[in-house]
C-alpha cells in the first residue's frame, strides 16, 4: 500500500533541506560544494518506501535526498555537511561521504560508479548470512559509462545478489547531455546484456517509482536477484549549487521546472482527493520545522577539531 503522506512529507523535507542548504551557501555562511538533488526527490521517496531501516543504501555525492529518505537524522546530516564535530562522520566526510549505518546508509561515494561494486559486497554479506536485507545502490546516468558499472552488474546477476541498482537519470553527466555521452537510448537497455531485469520509470512520479521499486525489492529479498531501475528526471539546476548551467537547453529547463516533482505531486494529491490541503500544509510545516531545528543545531555545533585528523585513519589511529 502506498503511503502518500509519507511519500509527500519526505519529498517536502528534501526540498526544504535543499533550499536551506542552498541559502546557507549562497549567503556565504558556509563554504562547501553542494550537489543539489533538486528534481530527484520523488526517486528517493519512492525507492525507500518499501525498505526497512536494516536494508542498506549506497549513494553518491548528489545524495542528500537519499540520505533524508533513508532516515539519516537531519541535525547530524546538516552538521556533517557544515563540517561540525556533531556530524554523522564527525566532520571528516562532508556532504560527499555521508555515512550512517544506524539508518542503513552505508556509503556515499564521490567517485562516479564507485558505489556499485561495493553494493554487491553488502548484498553478498546478506546472502551469505541469510539476513534478508536488500541493498539499494543509487547512481547517475553518467555512472553507467564507467567500467565498474558493467563489472558490478555482471557479478550481481551471476551471483543473484539481493541488490537493486537505481539509475537516477537526470539528463546530464556533469555538463554533458545524456545523448552525447551514452550510446543507448535507455540505461535500462543495458540490463538484458547481464541477464537482468531492466525497467525505466518516470522518476518524477513517486508512486510509479515506489511500485517499481517495491517489485524489485521483493524480487531481491526472495532470492530472484538484482534489477536495474532507471528513473527518468531532470536536474533542476547546475552540476553544483551556484554553478553555471547555460549549457542546459533553456526551453527544456523551463519545461522541467514547470513539471517540478514536488509541487506536481502535491497538486495531484489534492486533485485526486487523497490528502486535504490541511494535511499537506501540516506536512509542509513539519518538514520546514524539522529543517529549521536541524540547521540551528548544526550552526550551533563546534567545528570539527583539527587535533582529530589522525583519529580513524586506522583502528588504532595513525602513525605520526
Amino acid at each position, binding site marked *: 500500500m502506498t503511503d502518500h503522506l509519507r511519500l509527500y512529507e519526505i519529498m517536502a523535507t528534501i526540498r526544504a533541506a535543499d533550499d536551506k542548504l542552498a541559502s546557507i551557501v549562497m549567503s556565504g555562511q558556509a563554504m562547501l560544494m553542494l550537489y543539489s538533488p533538486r528534481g530527484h526527490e520523488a526517486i528517493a521517496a519512492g525507492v525507500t518506501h518499501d525498505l526497512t531501516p536494516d536494508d542498506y543504501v549506497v549513494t553518491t555525492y548528489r545524495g542528500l535526498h537519499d540520505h533524508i529518505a533513508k532516515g539519516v537524522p537531519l541535525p547530524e546530516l546538516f552538521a556533517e555537511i557544515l563540517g561540525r564535530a556533531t556530524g554523522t562522520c564527525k566532520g571528516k566526510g562532508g556532504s560527499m*561521504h555521508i555515512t550512517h549505518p544506524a539508518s542503513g546508509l552505508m556509503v556515499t561515494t564521490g567517485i562516479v560508479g564507485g558505489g556499485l561494486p561495493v553494493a*554487491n*559486497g553488502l548484498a*553478498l554479506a546478506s546472502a*551469505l548470512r541469510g539476513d534478508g536485507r536488500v541493498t539499494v545502490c543509487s547512481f547517475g546516468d553518467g555512472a553507467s559509462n564507467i567500467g565498474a558499472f558493467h*563489472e558490478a552488474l555482471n557479478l550481481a546477476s551471476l551471483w543473484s545478489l539481493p541488490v537493486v541498482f537505481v539509475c537516477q537519470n537526470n539528463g546530464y553527466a556533469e555538463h554533458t547531455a545524456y545523448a552525447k555521452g551514452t550510446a543507448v537510448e535507455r540505461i535500462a537497455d543495458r540490463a538484458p546484456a547481464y541477464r537482468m531485469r531492466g525497467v525505466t520509470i518516470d522518476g518524477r512520479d513517486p508512486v510509479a517509482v515506489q511500485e517499481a521499486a517495491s517489485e524489485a525489492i521483493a524480487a531481491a529479498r526472495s532470492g530472484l536477484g538484482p534489477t536495474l531501475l532507471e528513473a527518468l528526471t531532470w536536474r533542476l539546476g547546475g552540476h553544483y549549487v551556484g554553478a553555471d548551467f547555460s549549457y542546459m537547453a533553456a526551453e527544456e529547463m523551463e519545461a522541467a521546472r514547470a513539471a517540478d516533482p514536488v509541487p506536481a505531486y502535491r497538486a495531484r494529491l489534492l486533485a485526486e482527493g487523497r490528502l486535504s490541503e490541511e494535511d499537506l500544509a501540516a506536512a509542509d510545516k513539519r518538514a520546514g520545522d524539522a529543517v529549521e531545528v536541524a540547521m540551528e543545531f548544526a550552526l550551533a555545533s563546534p567545528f570539527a577539531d583539527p587535533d582529530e585528523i589522525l583519529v580513524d585513519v*586506522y583502528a588504532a589511529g595513525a602513525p605520526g
Partner: protein
Amino acid sequence: MTTTETPMMTLVEATRLALDDALAADPSVLLLGEDIADDEGGGVLHVTKGLSARHGTGRVRSTPISEQAIMGAAVGAAIAGMRPVAEIMLMNFVAVCMDQLFNHAAKLRFMSGGQTAVPLTVRTVTGAGAGFGAQHSDMLEAWLAHAPGLKVVIPSSPADAYGLLSSCISDDDPCVFVEHTLLYYGGAAGPAPERGSRIPLGQANVVRTGGDVTLIAYGKPVIEAVGVADTLGREGIGVEVIDLRTVSPWDETTVLESVARTRRAVIAHEAVRRFGVGAEIAARIHEELHDTLAAPVGRVGSAFCPVPFAMPMEYRYLYSAEAIEAAVRATLRA
C-alpha cells in the same frame, strides 16, 4: 637424506594453511578471486587448492576477471562485518581496481568518522626474475604505502607468511599482503609455522644482530641480506639485518634504535629505487639521527625501467646480493 626436527613447508603451503585455518576458525572469513575454487584449479598457482572443497564455494568463490567487482565486493562485505580475503592474481592487476582500494577501502573508516571499518585482506603475488615481463612482475608497495588507511605486509619466509597473513585477516583495517613468485616453491621452503601462531603487524624482526651496520629489507631481499650479513660476518663485520615484515605502518622504533647503535644503514628492496620505500626510511633516519650517522644511508633497489623480458636485461634491472654487499661496504668506508 638427513631428517630435520622441524618439518619444512613452502610459502604456498603456509599461505594455504593460514587461509584454511582462518576459514575454519571464523565463519565471517570469505575468499574471493579469479580461479580460486577447485573447479577452476584452486588458483592459477594453486595456493587455494582444496579450500573450496573444505569450506564450500559460497565462502571460497571464484569470480570473473573483474578486479573492480572483486575489490568492491570485498569492501562491501567488509563494511557489513565480514572478513573477506580478496585475491588479486598478480600485483599489477591492482592498477585495475585502485579506485576501490585507494578511494574506498583505505578511506571508508576515516570518511565515516570511524563508523565503517574495512577488515579486508588483499592477497597478491608478484616479483621479477622469472621472465614474466613488464606487466606481471612489479613490486608496487610504495603506491600502497603512500595511502593512509592501508597496511602493507610482505613476508620473507613461509612461517612469517602464515603468522602475518593470519594477523592481516583478523586485523580491523584493510591489509595488502604481497607474496613473491620466486619464494613460492620448494627452493624457498622454510620451517613450518606453528598452527595458530600470529605475528603482530607493524613489528619488524631482527633476523641477525650486529654492531657495525644496519641492513633493512623486506620480502625476498631479506634472503640476500642475510647472505650478505653472513659473508661480511666472516670478515668480522657485524651486520644487523632487520626484516620489516610490515612496510606500512613500519616499525620506526626498531629501525631507529638499531641505527642509533650501528650509525650506518642500508635499505634494500626489489621495487625500483626512485621514490621507493627506501627513500622514506632513509629520510626518517636522516631526520632523527643525522648527527649520529657515520655515513649517508645507502639504498638498493631495481633500475628505473619497466621490468624487461630478456633474461640478461631482467637481471641487469634487478637488485642483487652483490649490490647490497657493495652498498653495505660503501657505508663502512665512509
